[in-house]
């Protein structure tokens, strides 16, 4: 599996390096533009941006039609999927951590005014990365580059629809209720589990979601034809 991860990193090294540099610069800039930024928001943003780093790696083989070569090599389809998960997680996590570290460093140097506990950033970042990757992997395994673009377009359209529903048809109630419902449910869980139990629950939920995503991706990739 690590030979495949290494292969993906070699093939995508320029894109990955470019994304790293871009986001490491963007982080402190983002912080300097906002006052009283909650650390959890910074972490969520860093995680979202972090998951952008491996995107080109996930869809590269479809874009350049090289999956046929990879699947002709002495590796199983399951190993290919496992390597994508490993590569995706490694890059997203290291990217998210590096961005948070850059922002923290910038803050220590006197930039911006983040509020909240930095220790919370790790959990928020991990959960955010886990949610995005778990949804994204089956799409890219099934549809490759088109799946990736489709996923990104879908999330954009979802945001636009939510925005328009608020602005044009007064859907603020519905959108607000949905967000409030999720927040309420999480709050209720936190209340019943306690802070530590709640954190563990979130971690376990994200891990379970990713295991399900991995199994689904594997099932999908085994059936793909090149």
């Amino acid at each position, binding site marked *: 599996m690590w*030979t495949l991860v*290494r*292969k993906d990193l*070699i*093939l995508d090294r320029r894109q990955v390096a470019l994304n790293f540099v871009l986001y490491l610069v963007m982080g402190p800039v983002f912080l300097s533009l906002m006052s009283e930024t909650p650390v959890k928001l910074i972490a969520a943003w860093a995680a979202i941006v972090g998951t952008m780093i491996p995107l080109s790696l996930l869809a590269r083989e479809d874009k*350049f*039609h*090289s999956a*046929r*070569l990879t*699947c*002709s*090599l*002495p*590796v*199983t389809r399951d*190993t290919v999927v496992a390597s994508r998960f490993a590569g995706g997680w490694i890059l997203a996590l290291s990217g998210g951590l590096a961005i948070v570290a850059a922002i923290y460093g910038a803050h220590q140097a006197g930039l911006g005014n983040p509020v909240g506990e930095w220790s919370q950033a790790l959990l928020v970042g991990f959960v955010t990365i886990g949610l995005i990757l778990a949804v994204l992997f089956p799409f890219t395994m099934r549809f490759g580059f088109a799946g990736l673009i489709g996923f990104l377009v879908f999330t954009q359209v979802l945001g636009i629809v939510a925005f328009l529903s608020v602005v044009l048809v007064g859907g603020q109630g519905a959108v607000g209720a949905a967000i409030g419902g999720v927040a309420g449910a999480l709050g209720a869980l936190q209340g019943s589990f306690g802070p530590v139990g709640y954190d563990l629950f979130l971690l376990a939920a994200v891990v379970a979601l990713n295991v399900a995503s991995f199994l689904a991706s594997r099932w999908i990739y085994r*059936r793909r*034809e*090149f």
Partner: protein
Amino acid sequence: MDAALELAGVAKSWGEFVLRDVSFRLPPGYITGLVGPNGAGKTTLVKIVLDLVRADTGQVRVFGQDHRSNGASLRSRIGFVHDRPTCYEHLPVEQLGSLVGSFYATWDEGAFRDLVREFELPRRRRVKALSRGMKVKLALALALSHGAELLVLDEPTTGLDPVFRRELLERLSGLISDGRTSVLFSTQILSDLERIADFVVILRQGEVQYEGVKDDLLDRWAVVRGGPEVTSELEGLPVRGQRQTRMGIEVLVEDVDAARRRFGERAVVERATLDDVFLLLGAERDGGRAS
């Protein structure tokens, strides 16, 4: 001894394309040529062997083992060239070799370098900047650098210059002389088959029309050329196809001696070439093909 490759009742439907009941066996130490017109199913069959496409039914065995249940291990013993050579296009030739080689326990970096030099490939040029012929050469260099026991080559000679094509065919003939290396290669260039293949599989419209020893075919089969009266004298002969030409009629017969006895001097009876067989096999007089 287990066959290097054995297909039994392989079928695949894909939209309008249908591959029906394909069966053949490639013994170790031999070359099998897979020949057929465009759309006959050659590439699909090669992809099924490499497990890039799943057969709907049937069984593929490589070195006596099911090709899916032990795929990774079996593929380490297979060298391949795809019809459209797909590589990691952004890498230089040399780096691609090292990268692909890292997947094979038996990779011989020295052999790869020698082949790159021999094939006159520019080591530092990116793959995407290579011509199609050069990409085929590169794919061949990759396929030949890990001691593969089975080479699966999909139209490897297409796009190659005649000199290199001949060298490649000689190399393939040399490879099988060890008695353990086998080659399956698909082509539309019948002269390539005539030169090196031991066995021939003719595929047309997804069906195997002929499968057997090439020399048997060339020794036993005949083409009868004559006027329209020839058709009235075909009864009892093993006719495998015929077609109307501007000059008269051409008939493919499976028994050259029987055809000579039957027609004597009244028609031209010649041993069939692979071109003749490919053209006439299954053809009906009106230009159609027997189903």
